[in-house]
Structure formats: structure tokens, C-alpha cells
């Protein structure tokens, strides 16, 4: 698969995840506001705290692949000047490869953890939602972050952004 194909897949995945994470954040803001007003003047939103926790999972873990795709992880910028020409390109590829491995391994471990949580039948205390489902979601989204790093390792970058090849 060419870098162009991977770029399109990455951008498409990024748009979907952007919609997911943005909606989760907006919902969390509305929920907090409505819950505070409701608790003071009317009635509290049932299970608002648990809903916020679930929304945090969606918000955070769907944001991770976006950070990966747009190369927004914080790095030690002073060392950038040490890498020039092809060394710069290969160091970026190496970094993306290492991140892909880390996120992949973490996704795998979290997937197993989700299975164990499901087997134990753990549910949230108020809404009785299965916690394992959300941990599965965490694992899937971490796998997406791994995929984004793999795409970047193969030379794909988000549309409109500079390719690492142009790094001086």
C-alpha cells in the first residue's frame, strides 16, 4: 500500500476520531453544566459522575490517535538540530516505529485486561454499564494510535502537513 493510500486512510480515520472526541468533550461540558444547575435548583442528572468518566475515556483515547497522526507528542526539541538530512528522516521514522510498538503492546495488554474485566462482570455502580466494554474501547483506540504511527513510519503524513523528508 502506498504512502498516498495510507495518508487517505489516516485522514479519514482522523476525521472520524476528531468527531468522536469533540462530541465527547462537548457532551461533557453540557453534562457538567446541566448537572450543576440541576443539583442546585432542580434535580441532579442520574449517574452524571459515571457518564463524565465514560466520556473522559472516549475523549482521551480517541484523542491519542490524533496526537499520533499529527505528530504532536512532546519531544526534546534541542536534539532536533543534531539530526540533519537523512539522519533526520530516519530518526523520525525510528521514533514513529518505537511509538507504534509501544502503543501496539499497550493496546494488546489493555485488550487482555478488558477481557478479564468483562469476565469478572464488573459494572459501574449507578448506571450498571459494563466497564469492560469501555476498556475494550480504550484498547481499540490505542490500536488506532499504533496504526497512525505505522502509517507515519511508512512515510504517510496528514494532508497539508510537511513531510519529514523536507526536514533540513
Amino acid at each position, binding site marked *: 500500500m502506498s504512502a498516498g493510500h495510507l495518508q487517505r486512510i489516516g485522514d479519514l480515520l482522523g476525521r472520524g476520531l476528531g468527531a468522536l472526541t469533540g462530541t465527547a468533550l462537548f457532551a461533557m461540558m453540557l453534562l457538567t*453544566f446541566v448537572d450543576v444547575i440541576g443539583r442546585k435548583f432542580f434535580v441532579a442528572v442520574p449517574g452524571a459522575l459515571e457518564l463524565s468518566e465514560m466520556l473522559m475515556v472516549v475523549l482521551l483515547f480517541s484523542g491519542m490517535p490524533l496526537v499520533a497522526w499529527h505528530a504532536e507528542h*512532546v519531544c*526534546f526539541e534541542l536534539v532536533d538540530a543534531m539530526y540533519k538530512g537523512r539522519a533526520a528522516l530516519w530518526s523520525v521514522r525510528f*521514533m514513529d516505529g518505537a511509538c507504534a510498538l509501544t502503543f501496539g503492546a499497550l493496546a494488546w495488554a489493555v485488550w487482555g485486561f478488558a477481557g478479564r474485566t468483562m469476565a469478572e462482570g464488573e459494572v459501574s455502580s449507578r448506571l450498571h454499564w459494563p466497564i469492560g466494554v469501555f476498556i475494550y474501547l480504550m484498547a481499540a483506540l490505542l490500536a488506532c494510535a499504533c496504526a497512525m504511527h505505522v502509517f507515519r513510519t511508512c512515510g504517510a503524513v496528514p494532508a497539508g502537513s510537511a513531510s519529514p523528508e523536507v526536514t533540513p
Partner: protein
Amino acid sequence: MTACLLGFLAIFALMALRIPIAISMGLVGYVGLGLLKNFDMSLASVLEVVRSAGFSYTLSVVPLFILMGNFTARAGMARELFGLACAFLGHRRGGLAMATVGACAGFGAVCGSSVATAATMAKVAYPAMKELGYSDELATGSISAGGTLGILIPPSTVMVIYGLMTETSIGKLFAAGMLPGILMTVLMCGAVAWTAWRDPKAGAASERQTWLQRLAALRAVWGVVVLFGLVMGGIYGGLFTATEGAGFGAFGAFAFAVGRRQLSTRELGAILVESSRTTAMLFAILIGALMFGNYVNFTGMPDQLKTFVSQFGVHPIGVIVAICVIYVLLGTAMEELSMILLTVPVFFPLVMQLGFDPHWFGVLIVCVVMIGLISPPVGMNLFVLTTLLPGVKLSSVFRGVSPFIWAQILGLALLIAFPGISLIALRFVK
């Protein structure tokens, strides 16, 4: 102590290979704990950290304050704050630069981010200063340094993260930051005055405004006053927690932006995604730091450090000064939040064992972060300005910011010498 130092060395080695700081800390934490104990326990610790960071209601304060800051930046409140500050200070030499610092302080009261404050004020204040013939050095220096007030004057994202990491009350931390924020504002205005005194051409005075004009400017900032009053008043009045205050503030800022017709659906989407991405990036570092923190605690480094310090009979304030010097030096080379998250697990227990107040130490931490944000060569605010103002040379920004760095170092010294400046406000918090 050797195991912990090796851990730090490993992190720096990975960072030199351009591995992100979050991944470096997480990997070293996992491998370190695995080697010291066993890998099953280490993996369990990693999974617990990932799960608790994900399912954390308390941590939802972070994205909500980030969102509030981004909505506030969009709502156009910065322009009115700058107008007010200009009305009162513009007639002085360097007055617009002082007004910029003052407006940054006001904007910091509704936005907890240094970068957002600097970026917003760059768009508002820089054209006005250039119109009056201000030098690039003074204009960019005042904006980039003034922007750092965003994280000292509550609400503050850095204080929230420090509070969450050290289990210190976020409400009290916010209160502790108020007077230091005013002190830093005054000192930075002093830096402007000093620059304008040395080079009168750098910052000309504009026309003095009448009291009627000043009153009109004062009326225009009602939005900021209402938002700040709602969030901080709500938190200190016991109406809601910091997390609820953040949600309330984000909704308030959203309502202002919509009410002023400053927010299209497309921009709303962009702000939400940008806020989520910033949150995810911060949480990646937080998760990595928590994994590394577990390793640091297991090595017993904090206790050994205390024994090490007591062997030399160093005065406790000497330890604080040494920590601040380390932070200021590290801040010139490292991204500030990562630096804090990396080192707080080591320094915080030591500082507590020495009997210092966690809120006071939190304020000091924020101050060193402020200095780091404008210290060359990797001060984040400096790069924000050169990105937003492509006609300005980085060297001009570097030169312009130096009086402000000294002002902030003086402020830090005063805060160390007189802890009461930070702590007096705590008496009024329940």
C-alpha cells in the same frame, strides 16, 4: 538512589533518540519496575495507571479548563481587556506594553493557558504597538512574558495538573496564585518601564484618555468579570468543585462566544478537536509520568534524597533555592510540563518532609514554568509569537524577553523569601 538516577539517564537517552517524553517516561517506568520487582507486577501497575487516568472524573477538570480557555480566546474578550488597560496606562512611556501585560493578567483570569493568552494577545496588542512605532523587542517581549500570567492567575492548567499529581486542593492552589499573579504583573510592568527608560524610542506614549472614555472601557469588560466571578466565586463560595467550575466556565465562555457571534459551527468543531488533542497530549505525558513516578517511589529515591540533603546540613530554604535553580536550568531545555511531571515525584516528597506548604511550592513551580516558557532556546511562548508574527525575527524576541526573565526571577526570589504572599489568601478559603 542509583536505580533512580539510571532511570533518569535512560529517559534522557531515549529523548535524545527523539522518542516522545511520554513514551520515554512510560517505558522506563515499566522496564525499571519490571527489573526491580517483576514484569507481571509492572504490567499490572501500567494497566492500573491507564485505567485510573481514563476513568477519572477528577481529571476531567483538565479538558474543561482547556476548552474554557479556547472559547474565551475566540469570544473576543482580549480586545476589550486591552482597551481597558490602554485607557488607564497608554499615556505612559511604554504604556501599550504595560497595557499588554495588564490585559494578559486580566485574560489569565478567564483562561488557564499561557500559550493561548500569548497567542490571543499577539493578535490584539501587536498591531496597536507597531502602529505607535514600538520596537519589535518590547512588543514581543511584553506579549510573550505577559502570556505566562495565564498560568499563574487562576484558573491555571499547570496548577490543576500539579494539584492532581500531588493531591493538593486545586481551589486553594488557585487562591495561592492570586497575589503572586498581581506581583508578577507589577514586576513585568516595571520591566517595561525599565526598557522604555533605557530606550525611549522603543515605546512611545499615546494620548491620555478622559475619565469618560475610561469608564466606557471599564463597562466593556463586563463579560470577563462575570465569567471570572462565576467560576472563582462558585468554587470559593462552595457552590461547586473545581471540576464543576471548569464545566460551568467552559459553558459560560461558549455562551459568550455564541452570543457575540464569534463562533461558527466549523470553528466550534475545530475548537473542540483542538482542545481534545491538547488534552490527549497532556494525558499521554501524565500517564507516562505516573508510570515513572511508581518506579521512582519503588526505588525509595525521595527518602534517600532527604537523608542525602540532611547529611550536608543544608538549610531547607537552600534546598528550595537549589530545586528552583534546577528547574530554571531544565526549563531552558525541556518542555515545561514534562519537566514538572518528571521531577515532581522526586522533589515533592522531599519538600513535604522539609515541612513546606504544598500550595506555596505549587506557586513556585508555576513561576519556574513561567520562566521556562520565555527562556531561550526552547521557550514555548517565543515560538508561538514567531509563528504568529512571521515578520518578527526570533533574535528580536529573544532580546526583548530578557528584562522580563529578570523580572520573573526577582518575583520568584520574593515569593521564596516571603511565603506569605502566596499563603495569605488561603486564610479566606474554606
